[in-house]
């Protein structure tokens, strides 16, 4: 189980990364932490003649904060984000990070790599989608921003153009009175979620002024549950969360794999949403 041969490029500036991607086109793949890419290559499910290793681009490993958002560079390791004070101001991100694999994986895996990889069962794409994060893409034409809601197209497919890299993600900071919950079920500790829900609420007394609910493992992308969010905002903090869960699950069309059927995923979804919301409301009230 050895990967195919490739040429390794280790640029030190973002423009060099972009230039290499332009030069090699489809033959090139960006290598960030490698925790998803390298197994795929070892199993020879994919071969890439050129890997553009972005670990030596200092600009991509920075975390910066403004009052309203935290910008996480693509190459920030997940474990470093877990310990970062600015990331702590985005509690949903901070809560989601420990759910990724195991600590040895998070020491290498990156925030940007996980989002660009766009696995529908992984946590960070769902965080981006739930919080309406902005994806910073850098390409030959410079920098542009893509709304998370526009970013995830299908399993392992994103709105990044050929020759573009995900250079950073901007996560909005929610205000006071907010709470967040991450709930997922997996076959084993550290496995990809069979089904997961990431939720956030902002309370003003019993009024829900803001809500987000995103599910993972239930489709080809993370799924934002807009109807359920609306129902929660309408119903307030004492709404019947089972009902909110049912509303969230109703439109889902999950896929099946060796671990769970589509019917199972759909059946358990309401409870997972309920649990995530219960945690979020509890935190918001405290």
């Amino acid at each position, binding site marked *: *189980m*050895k*990967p*195919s*041969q*490739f*040429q*390794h490029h*280790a640029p030190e500036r973002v423009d060099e990364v972009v230039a290499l991607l332009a030069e090699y086109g489809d033959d090139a793949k960006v*290598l960030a932490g*490698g*925790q998803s890419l*390298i*197994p795929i*290559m*070892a*199993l020879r499910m994919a071969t890439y*003649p050129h*890997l553009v*290793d972005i*670990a030596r681009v200092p600009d991509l490993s920075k975390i910066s904060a403004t009052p309203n958002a935290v910008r996480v560079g693509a190459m920030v390791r997940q*474990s470093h984000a877990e310990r970062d004070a600015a990331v702590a101001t985005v509690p949903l991100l901070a809560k989601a990070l420990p759910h990724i*694999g*195991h*600590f*040895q*994986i998070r*020491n*290498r895996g990156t925030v940007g790599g996980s989002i660009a990889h766009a696995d529908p069962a992984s946590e960070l794409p769902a965080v981006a989608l739930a919080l309406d994060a902005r994806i910073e893409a850098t390409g030959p034409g410079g920098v542009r921003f893509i709304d998370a809601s526009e970013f995830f197209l299908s399993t392992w497919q994103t709105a990044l153009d050929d020759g573009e890299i995900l250079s950073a993600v901007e996560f909005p900071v929610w205000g006071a009175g907010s709470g967040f919950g991450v709930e997922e079920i997996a076959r*084993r*500790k*550290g496995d990809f979620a069979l089904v997961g829900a990431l939720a956030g609420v902002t309370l003003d007394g019993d009024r829900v002024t803001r809500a987000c609910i995103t599910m993972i493992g239930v489709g080809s992308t993370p799924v934002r549950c807009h109807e359920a969010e609306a129902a929660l905002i309408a119903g307030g903090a004492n709404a019947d969360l089972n009902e909110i869960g049912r509303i969230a699950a109703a439109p889902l069309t999950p896929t099946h794999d060796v671990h769970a059927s589509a019917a199972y995923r759909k059946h358990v979804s309401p409870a997972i949403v309920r649990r995530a919301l219960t945690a979020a409301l509890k935190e918001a009230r405290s």
Partner: protein
Amino acid sequence: MNDRTRVRLTVNGHAEQVEVEPRAILADVLRDNLGLTGTHLACEHGVCGACTVLIDGEAARSCLVFAVQAEGASITTVEGIAPDGGLSPVQEAMRDCHGLQCGFCTPGIVVSMTAYLNTHPNPSDADLKEAMSGNLCRCTGYQGILAAARQAADRMNASS
């Protein structure tokens, strides 16, 4: 295309320089180029944890790192956990608690446990269960491993 790349590493405190294919994973380079066969490969796709080493002090699966990515890094393998030829507190605890049988997963267990306890001095039993869940063992049913983690944590704490 098949050009080899020069990679400089510090391994268990020694400066090393190897010429490797870019596709060479760190585990293979440690084993084949440097003769440090204590790092084992049991899945080569990042699940079992047998190949865990410290990269700049942090535990990582050395089957999920190309050696070229580790350029300039400081690597600690299981051979370097107790450099004086004795046993570290983790290794002693593993022996005391029968935390190993066939020994194949053991290097990864030792390295992961060492890394975790170095940064988490007061773990609960639940913390230890979670921390060790990234290393598969087929012999022990994990009972001795978790007991060893407890003992090592308590002793490292008592002596610090």
